[in-house]
């Protein structure tokens, strides 16, 4: 990965309700060469492969270590193991290794404040998802832990990646999820994986009312599975999709 990216922070004089920093990620140069493209996509695919394999590992390793482990039986263990491994791999890949994004300032205090804000955002996002899931019809009080686990898993799949790629800036997140908002292959992949995870969880709610009496229809197993499969398929789809649409994807440089 070449040093082609910078981060520029623009603080505009916006009213109080626009207190968030307007944060833009821009490329120094427009990527022109095909080779560069392939390089980017290959890098992304390998990162995705690492994340996907971490999910499989998170399923296999506890099966060896933990007694009586099963995805349905001890579902919460599985959920948290997947969430933790995905989080670790994401943070390692994006933040520590600096894939996709390199911070402008490298001072310790900046990093610490960034980390604190990121964890705050992550917690808020967990509660946000929790509320959304309850609004969608999850039980309010009973099995609150299960609901919250789903929220944590969804936050890991979506918010954490946003935090890693875009930093703790809601403005930037909102900007990414628009048609012309993606400014790099990483942004496009973020769009795809986030949408796939959320749609997967949404689809996962469908079998719950059916009278099939299957173990995976128990709340929240179908939704967590749906989110996981959605995320996995997003990881797989993103490189191919970007590869096929590379002609249309012309990332604007400033």
């Amino acid at each position, binding site marked *: 990965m070449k040093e082609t990216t910078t981060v520029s922070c623009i603080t505009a004089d916006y009213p109080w309700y*626009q207190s968030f920093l307007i944060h833009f990620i821009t490329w120094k140069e427009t990527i022109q060469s095909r080779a560069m493209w392939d390089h980017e996509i290959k890098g992304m695919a390998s990162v995705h492969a690492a994340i996907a394999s971490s999910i499989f590992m998170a399923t296999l390793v506890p099966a060896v270590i933990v007694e009586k482990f099963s995805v349905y039986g001890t579902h919460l263990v599985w959920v948290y193991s997947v969430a933790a491994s995905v989080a670790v791999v994401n943070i390692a890949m994006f933040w520590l290794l600096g894939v996709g994004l390199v911070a402008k300032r490298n001072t310790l205090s900046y990093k610490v404040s960034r980390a604190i804000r990121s964890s705050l955002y992550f917690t808020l996002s967990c509660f946000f998802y929790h509320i959304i899931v309850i609004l969608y*019809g999850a039980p309010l009080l009973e099995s609150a832990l299960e609901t919250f686990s789903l929220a944590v898993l969804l936050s890991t799949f979506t918010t954490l990646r946003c935090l890693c790629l875009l930093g703790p800036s809601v403005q930037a997140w909102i900007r990414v999820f628009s*048609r012309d908002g993606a400014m790099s292959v990483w942004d496009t992949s973020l769009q795809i994986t986030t949408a796939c995870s959320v749609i997967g969880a949404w689809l996962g709610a469908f079998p719950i*009312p059916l009278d099939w009496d299957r173990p995976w229809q128990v709340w929240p197993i179908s939704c967590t599975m749906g989110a996981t499969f959605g995320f996995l398929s997003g990881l797989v789809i993103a490189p191919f999709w970007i590869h096929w649409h590379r002609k249309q994807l012309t990332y604007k440089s*400033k």
Partner: protein
Amino acid sequence: MGTARMKRLPVLALLLWVCAMFYVGIYLFVGGFLLVRLEVNKSSSCSDSLPPGTGTQDFCPVEPRFRRAVVLIIDALKIDFARFDSHNISPRPFENKLPVLEEMKSSHPAHSRLFAFRADPPTTTMQRIKGFTTGSLPTFVDVGNNFASSAILEDNLVHQLGEAGKRVVFMGDDTWESLFPKKFHRSLPFPSFNVKDLHTVDDGILKHLYSTMEGSEWDVLIAHFLGVDHCGHRFGPNHPAMADKLTQMDRVIRSVIERLQNDTLLVVMGDHGMTDSGDHGGESLKETDAALFFYSPTPTFPPTLSQAEPEVVPQTDLVPTLALLLGVPIPYSSIGQVILPFFPEESQASGVQTYLSQLEALWINAKQVNRFLETYSHIAKDIPPESLSMLREQFSFLLAEYSGMVKEGQAASPTLVTALQSYLTAVRNVCRATWAKFNPLKMTAGILILTTSCLLCLAMSEMSEMVRDSFMPWASLVVGAFVGGTVAAGQQGSLGYVDIAWCLGAAIFFSQLLFIWRLCCAKDNGGGGARDSGPRQTGWRILPTLSIPLLVLALRCTSLLSDSYVIAEGRVATFLLLSLSFYIPLHLNWDGLLLPFSPESQKAPGLLPPPPLPSSVIRRESLILLACLGVLVASLYLSLFFHNCREEQGTCDPSPFLLPLARVQDSRLRNLHYVLSVVALAAWNYLLYWWLRHYGNLNSPGPAAFTARWPLPLASICAGLYWAVSSTPEETFRGLAELIALALVALPRIAFAFLGLGTTLLWLSPLTVFLKPRQVACPQGPTPLPRYRASTGVSPEAELRHLIPQLYQRMRRSLEDGEPSGSPEGHSGPAMEAYGLGTVYSAPLVLLTGLLGLGLLLLHSEGMALAFLLLLLEAAALLHLHASSVTLESLQGPQKEVFSVPWVSVLLWDLAATQFFHATGHLPTFPSIQWDAAFVGFPKGHVGTLLPGSLVTLNTFSSHILFAVGCPLLLFWPLVCEVRALRQGHGASKEDAVMEMRLRERPQKFSSALVQLAARCFFIKGAQVLASVLAAAILRRHLMVWKVFAPKLMFEASGFVVASVFTLIAFTLVMRVDFAVSGMFKKLIPEHSR
């Protein structure tokens, strides 16, 4: 002015025709789906010799077992009520209240016997009476006749008893009188419809029962008590009133037993059971299992082992048993099986008794059933041939066995008895399986017409530009009438009769074809006209613009094909509604319209012109959108607490708000509920009032504003008082009983009268506009100032906010031209202010919705006021959400003057109707119909069936009605909210807000927008009807068809009919307003000035 006028009548005619297409499709399908079992119009008689006959006296033995019988029918006497458990120390109100049965069973085991009497669904009283007098199976379609029961034409027990010369005396439920007119020797019917009345029928019976029994003027006495059933409906089984009622029944049974004579049989039976909430109609065991108790003063039954659980007897079995015991022929169509314990096992030829033995009784029974089956299979072909031949084979085997046995004089073998029993059971099962029979041809035709109707609506909505004044369905109608007439003539000629369904079907189908063909032609021709590239593009642009809403609609329709999703429909609708409402901001954000981009990113493409509006406008609009989303989501979530429960949903508690307050035992809770309801009612009123005042509509001196000011609040006060009166327990104010009874009649009627008055006034003069010359020094006399001023002062901005004086540019110009002398400096400022002109179309609609909502709320239980308030909030939030998204799109996108309502909004609107159908405590099942609605204002019951029927219909589909009436608001709301955006955007310098007058300026576009909106509404509703029709058709042999799919189809279809009627009413009101506005302008602008 006045040259370009909207064509009102053609638009209405078009919509009416579209509705008619759907009606005919539904009519055709339902006609094929819900067919009645063919009735065999033959009667048994004593002289019949049953084939293969050996003796001629099959039916009428010399010596019947009993000469007389007393049949006590205790409506809804569930089997649980008849059980007695001496170990139960603290029985619930319905337990251990009939000890007489247990006493008789233990002290006289040979005299009495208790059975569980299993009814066939539908467990409604009329079907049950029909079932246990004819011995046949009722069919689904009879459910609709419950309150208009017509005479039974099939052979039945009452008829047979009459033929045999028995004097049948009847007393009780007046349903019998309508089922068996003039069949009784003496009849004492009492009114049955009033569910709240626990005592009239029972007291009436008791007044005559004992005296009749002691007299000699009877052979069979039928007494039908209704108290237990009504107690269940009113209070549920778990209520002290039920204990009182059952104890009373216990005394009745004791008294009757004391008066029995030796030749008399006593039958005590329930016609069906009840659920835990006291309702019935479905097919759960709680509803089907009633008690059946026999007692005879002479020993009748063989000794049995200890009878822990009563044996289960199907309801059809009573008919052959009673017939043989009383010595009358078994009714022709009976498929029941004799109850064996009544007959001795061996024919004791040597003894004194000459009664039928088990074998003889069963043999007569089997021959009778076989005869019926043969006759039936001759006239109808619906019993599958393979089962028929199987049954025939079984019967011939039995015949050989039996005749062999008789010839050899053997003793009756138990195996033959068992074989006969299994034959009879097999016949019953085959009949049960068959008598839900369908007419596939009609069903297919219905589906075809519904499909083409949906397609036509889709085409109309996407090509609404082409559906113009000149393009109206007159030609189609003529062709349709012609084809229908031809088909009718053809039928008359070839068949000799006319099946109206086919004529209508053919007529509609051909008119549809012609319309679609003309639409295609117009599309091609239109391409050569003004916009040559337009139509082709519209054709291609349909799919992407539809995609997500179309997907959600497809999900909704697919969910109707699965019983689990139909059972969970309330949650499914909420889920989809929520998803779709989240989709709106996400989609806007995806298009980059939700948040203003900073100038840098806007400049980058270099293609779009810089937005003319400052980003604060967009930000403000986005905030409004998100706030509306919040309100919508909150009211959606809260509305989940008002759901009712289906019996299939295991762990589910119905909402406590569904209970009428009179049934709430805890007085503090009752007061709390009452206060909440009244607060909700007040909020409902205040919101409407506030909205009308905000847009200046209340300044109008006309009747419409009067309606908002007086009849609406007065009706609400009546409603609040009515709730107070109806929720007071009867015991508290004994002295005021008469006053309370009067108030129960008068208050709701007064409220309805106010609402009716309001609606009439609104219809007569729907304008809510107040005209005021702006110049203070206007020569024409003093004009009253508007009453509603901003409370904060009279600063221009506040005035704008609170009064919204609408200045109609053309009107002003015309006025100036017409009266040059009247206002010399007219050009400097507008001559006239018209308060409320900007919301001239939506104000009457809002008002009508408010009036209707109040009326419908009165038909619900008090707690539903909260649900109705949520409905109003959600509807408002939806409208604002829709308006904000449209505004955001138009502010930043290309400016276009197209009044098109996007699919998302229409689908959201329709899903909200479905969602509130559930959130007002309704379910698509028959037991959950809120019959109480028929007694609001009519606590004594009704004479006819039309009024109670329509009240119950209004109650059931109230959510559909409200959302249908509000449907045109989707078109107006973005224009109503326009002022907000414009004020921010253009400031005071630009033109004044024109709001809904924008529509009047372009009558062509107005009418095509109306047509498009209606077409989209009808398409979405029609697609759901089509889906439930398909579900019923495809899954017609599904286990759940009569429990889930058929009721769902009935509710969906009737919901469509009701909703479409009210949609038409709303569109008519819009036309009425348009007419009135034209009239107003004509009056304002003198004839010579034009």
